[in-house]
């Protein structure tokens, strides 16, 4: 008798639990469902459909496509134009990352001093980072103009004639790196500044008492304690420079002559003159796995190294 009552109670408890569970689920889907659907439809689905498109020889807009297996990948890794994209991407990434990190660190070291007005300076230095890449590139297009630009006037003052920024491929690449660094260095400076301020003052003071000069203090105390910040910036900057630079590249060098990094090539191949959608999809897949690999390396190292304090 009593056991029957117990099971009855148990059953109703289970039922109540199930009811609560399903009520929770419907609430969860109401709150998170739309976002999850959007992410599935516009981030995950493209990721996998790209992998399928990448095996096709297919022109954008054409209704027929031929299966060609991994030929698109082979072409990207072996053809002259594919290797040129890798070369340009490597130079652009290295220049953009090193340039903005070194200049950013120098600015951060200066802003870390106790001087009035440094907050305003920090804001000004960071500001290009939030501006439209297209707008910024238009301004620099004017500055780099070999005959009318501000830079040609400055160089002319020193008796130097302006390089052919737009005609010579190497100068073009150098030019877009300069603009990217200009836009990005404030970000690095602010992150470095936060890293510098987290270094305990007594360590620096102790080094000063031991008669370490400013350079010795920087190399032996500041820099080692700054490695987590350096590592973080290195990774984020590589990721950003591989994906965020499109607006500058496209506005300053519309044809991509000498400046077609991976991201620019994805655009040019599918929406430029060639309309090689399959090839473009293959490059997009390669880009994704490159970024995925870099992030995975970062997560692995960050877990181990960053918690030094």
């Amino acid at each position, binding site marked *: 008798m009593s056991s029957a009552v117990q099971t009855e109670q148990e059953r109703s408890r289970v039922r109540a639990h199930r009811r609560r569970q399903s009520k*929770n689920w419907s*609430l*969860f889907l109401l*709150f*998170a469902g739309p*976002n*999850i*659907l*959007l*992410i599935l439809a*516009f*981030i995950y*689905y*493209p*990721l996998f459909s*790209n992998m399928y*498109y990448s095996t096709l020889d297919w022109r954008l807009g054409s209704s027929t496509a031929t299966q060609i297996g991994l030929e698109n990948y082979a072409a990207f890794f072996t053809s002259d134009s594919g290797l040129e994209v890798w070369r340009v991407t490597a130079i652009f990434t290295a220049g953009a990352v090193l340039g903005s990190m070194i200049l950013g660190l120098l*600015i951060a070291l200066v802003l870390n*001093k*106790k*001087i009035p007005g440094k907050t305003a*300076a920090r804001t000004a230095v960071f*500001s290009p*980072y*939030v501006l*439209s*890449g*297209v*707008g*910024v590139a*238009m*301004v620099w*297009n004017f*500055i780099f*103009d070999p*005959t*009318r630009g*501000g830079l040609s006037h400055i160089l002319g003052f020193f008796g130097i004639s302006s390089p052919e920024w737009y005609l010579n491929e190497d100068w073009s690449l150098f030019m877009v790196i300069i603009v990217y660094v*200009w836009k990005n260095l*404030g*970000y690095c400076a*602010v992150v470095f500044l*936060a890293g510098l*301020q987290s270094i305990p003052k007594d360590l620096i003071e102790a080094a000063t008492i031991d008669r370490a000069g400013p350079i010795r203090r920087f190399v032996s105390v500041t820099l080692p304690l700054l490695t987590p910040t350096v590592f*973080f910036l290195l990774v*984020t900057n590589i990721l950003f420079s591989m*994906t965020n630079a*499109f607006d500058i590249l496209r*506005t300053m060098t*519309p044809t991509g002559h000498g400046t077609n990094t991976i991201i620019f090539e*994805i*655009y040019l191949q*599918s*929406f430029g003159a060639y309309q090689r*959608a399959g090839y473009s999809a293959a490059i*997009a897949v390669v*880009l994704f796995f490159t*970024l995925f690999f870099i*992030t995975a390396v970062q997560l692995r190292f960050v877990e181990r190294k*960053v918690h030094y304090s």
Partner: protein
Amino acid sequence: MSLTRSRTPKDEAQRRGIAPEQRDPKKQKLSKAERKQMRRGGWLDAFSRQNLADTILTGYLPIFVALIVIVLPLAWMVSSSFKPPSEIVTLNPTLLPQDPTVDNFGNVVDRVPLLTMFGNSIYVTVVGSSIKVLLAVTTAYALVFIKVPGRNFIFLGILVALMVPPEVSMLPNYLTITGLGGRDTLWGIILPGLGTAFGTFLLRQHFMALPKEMFEAAELDGAGHFRKLFQIAAPVSIPAIATVGLVTVVNEWNSFLWPLVITGSAEKMTLPVGLNLLQSVETQAGSYGILMAGAVIVIAPMLIIFAALQKYIVAGLTQGSVK
């Protein structure tokens, strides 16, 4: 970034929207007067006789150089946008326009439907950002407070999405949106970007640091999830939501690649795409004034928003760097 539920003083500071350099716990113990004294002492130190040379040579001089490099291009842009063509092509340019004119802005309006583009940009930014922020808030709330099995797995799925740059999804999304009839429409520009991983991630971290007691008290009063979200969690998280919102606004306004791909007619373009069009039309040397006027129009709004609300924007954009 630790994914576990934790409440450190830093989380606390972040919750209240305090900038990193103000978090030093030692400073908080000092009274206001003492702090003022200290700060003034620091200022005087910087200008004391033995430090003056150092302050100028390793402080102000490099800052001055950096500011020239950062500010001069923007000043040049503003100044040139008010110059007539004769002052643009001259071999002896001056920093300030000698004969200021607003013709360049009028010319931009003549060449491209500027007001329509400006309106499009505002529409896309406002509608896109509002929906994104709302979705981020509700998703983050669901992930933290609505207990369903597998929600951590769902969160992991959102984290991975954070790693996929929109450029990678460009071609398939182009086909999807074209298939839905969204080519060359404003909703076609907005829709693919609405799923938000960044905002969800940031707000989830933030919600996890909120004190449990707040919600327990509300539950005793019989509050459901809607009331807990909109009357407790959201109001106390205004700084974090503002951070997400402002970062989203900046990104939507500046967004270029997707609107470039999905729009075709000038009437549906956002400002960055329209200005790119303007640049391909205006190829004469004298037309730099017009191009600079266009650049001012796309750059100035963000510069103003940034100047006013830089604390939140910097905090949001440098997220993850300060542990």
